[in-house]
């Protein structure tokens, strides 16, 4: 009982970190640009597909993992491949923002939803064109679990999950640092708080918005890449459920709040995994029930700040 509680909680945390990587992009895009990006799940899926191609090439360069040293090298190469795959999403995100999203900031939000939905549909076919319709397995899960870190911890748990969680934590730490301490991050926050004022003191809002959208796409793609190098496969419809769950996450945490997205993601991840364990029938409904409760009781979310990243 205690053991399975532990394992399910860890699984929930893993899932939560993945959700956080997707939802962080969604929440900063919403916080700064004011756009709810329905195509965000497809960016996540695109990351998962790109990493499949990149990993196949990268792992061919190193020996297959047998002893600890080669296993660590293998793990590092796979992680680097995930980063490269996510980096592919940077220009993609910038292109989408500059060409499609920029002309509609001033329009009603119905059109913004319609536009991002149209992009979602187009992305599905782009991925179908690139990788076909059958699910793809990057095949690195076994190799990653050769890294013997978990034997040191004293209980059996896939080290891939541990690595993914650490990566998620690093992403959160970097984002907090970026928006709190770095100059670009502060400029972005200033733009989010007051666009006109930011323009008046010489910030190019266009470029800021492009950067933010590209960043959001990057983290969505990184989340997809981290999932795809694990036990899961990359498939065409994989973007839909995480997209809907990220809505839950950013609503629970507070729209536009980074810390909120972090707490919300872990909460949703753990709750859904506990539900699978204790009462599978409510697994799908549980996150939405949490979201409903939060929206009805505290609509601004746990860390709610409108249009401001904290």
């Amino acid at each position: 009982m205690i053991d399975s509680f532990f394992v399910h909680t860890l699984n929930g945390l893993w899932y939560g970190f993945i959700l956080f990587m997707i939802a962080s992009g969604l929440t900063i895009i919403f916080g700064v640009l004011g756009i709810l990006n329905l195509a965000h799940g497809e960016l996540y899926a695109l990351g998962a597909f790109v990493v499949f191609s990149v990993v196949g090439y990268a792992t061919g360069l190193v020996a297959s993992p047998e002893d600890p040293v080669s296993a660590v090298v293998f793990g590092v190469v796979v992680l680097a491949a995930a980063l490269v795959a996510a980096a592919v999403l940077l220009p993609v995100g910038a292109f989408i923002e500059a060409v499609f999203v920029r002309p509609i900031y001033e329009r009603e939000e119905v059109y913004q939803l319609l536009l991002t939905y149209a992009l979602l549909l187009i992305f599905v076919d782009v991925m179908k064109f690139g990788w076909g319709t059958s699910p793809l397995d990057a095949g690195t899960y076994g190799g990653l679990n050769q890294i013997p870190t978990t034997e040191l911890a004293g209980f059996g748990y896939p080290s891939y999950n541990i690595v993914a969680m650490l990566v998620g934590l690093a992403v959160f730490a970097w984002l907090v640092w970026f928006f709190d301490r770095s100059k670009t991050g502060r400029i972005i926050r200033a733009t989010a708080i007051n666009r006109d004022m930011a323009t008046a003191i010489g910030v190019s809002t266009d470029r800021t918005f492009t950067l933010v959208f590209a960043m959001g796409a990057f983290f969505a793609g990184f989340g997809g890449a981290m999932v795809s190098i694990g036990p899961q496969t990359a498939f065409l419809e994989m973007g839909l459920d995480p997209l809907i769950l990220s809505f839950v996450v950013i609503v629970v945490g507070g729209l536009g709040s980074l810390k909120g997205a972090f707490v919300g993601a872990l909460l949703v991840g753990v709750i859904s995994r506990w539900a699978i364990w204790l009462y599978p029938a409510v697994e799908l409904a549980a996150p939405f029930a949490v979201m409903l409760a939060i929206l009805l009781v505290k609509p601004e979310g746990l860390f709610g700040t409108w249009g401001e990243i904290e």
Partner: protein
Amino acid sequence: MSRLSPLEERDGETVVRVPLTNGLTLTKGQTALTLVGILVLFGLPFLAGIVGLSWGRLFRGLLFGMAAVGLNLLLRHTELVSFGHAAFFGGGAYAVAVLAAHLDVSEGLLLLLAAVIVGTLLAAFIGYFVAGYVDIYFALLTLAFNAVIFATVFRSGFFNYNDGLAVRVGGDNPTLFGLGWTDLGYDLVLYYTTIVLMLVMLLLMWRLVHSPFGRALDAIGQDRTRARFIGIPVERYVWISFTISGLYGAFAGGVYALQRLHVQPEPTLYVFVSGEILFMAILGGFTTLVGPLIGGVLLVYLLEATRFSFYYYHAPIGIILLAIVFFMPKGIMGSLPDILAGLSRRASDPGLLGDDLQTIGSSIRRSLSRATTTVRILVFGVR
């Protein structure tokens, strides 16, 4: 009743009074279009085959369009974006399926009535909670309710999980008007019953949006605070309109179940179905009454037909929606007058076409030069 002529002069224009509407009128052109539309609806089972379209698909399109007409009451007047209307569509469909599969109710009209009641109650229940919210919160709340209902149905043995329920009692089609029918007869009777009910519902919606209640909804959409100041009970009116719009969705869902004779969660209840219903309204033109109906027929037809004939069936719809966003924001029906006027102007003065080309060319040049500047700055920084 005195023999009044249906024609009348008003503001220097000849208008046609529509019966049963307390003095609502159409212009001559609109009357002609309406009559043609009604004729096409009644002839559809026979006309569709001639031009090579699938009648069943058009029927389903009309049903989703009907749900979109309901949603449009919120979208057009109270300016609320609902992302959960599949809850009522699916609610109606499942009411039919559950009654037929578990309680052996075999009369189609009874099932339809139950669908409308269940879906409307559902809408009243959800509407009670969401009426006080606006903007993105309203959208996300309705989405959450929708998702909870979908997840419950999807994971519940009572609703037979993903496989759904068949709307058949002992292997037979439901009866309509107490009579058993052949397959073709069943479809035809169901279709014509639906069309008649649909026309009545459209007429009622038309009356509703031109009633004082409809005007009050407009006021709520423009400014809630002001609406409250002039004495409109905002939350209650939004609740009522939400319930009415759910009723339309529930009706459509009930007929959908009777037409398909099998109800599954994904095509009726999934959150993306809600999105599709919303986009039908915009595609057809949410500033008009019948636009959502047209949008529904078009989008459902595209979604279903392209799936079988093209390998890449998502992108064409995506491109159409993009075109709607950028070039026809008022949707098909909403932009029709503008397009016709523009075309007739160009027909009388061909010189305008040259101007058009020039405008297009210069705008492309301008955006290209802007793009190169942006890329230069991104790559090399500001000099």
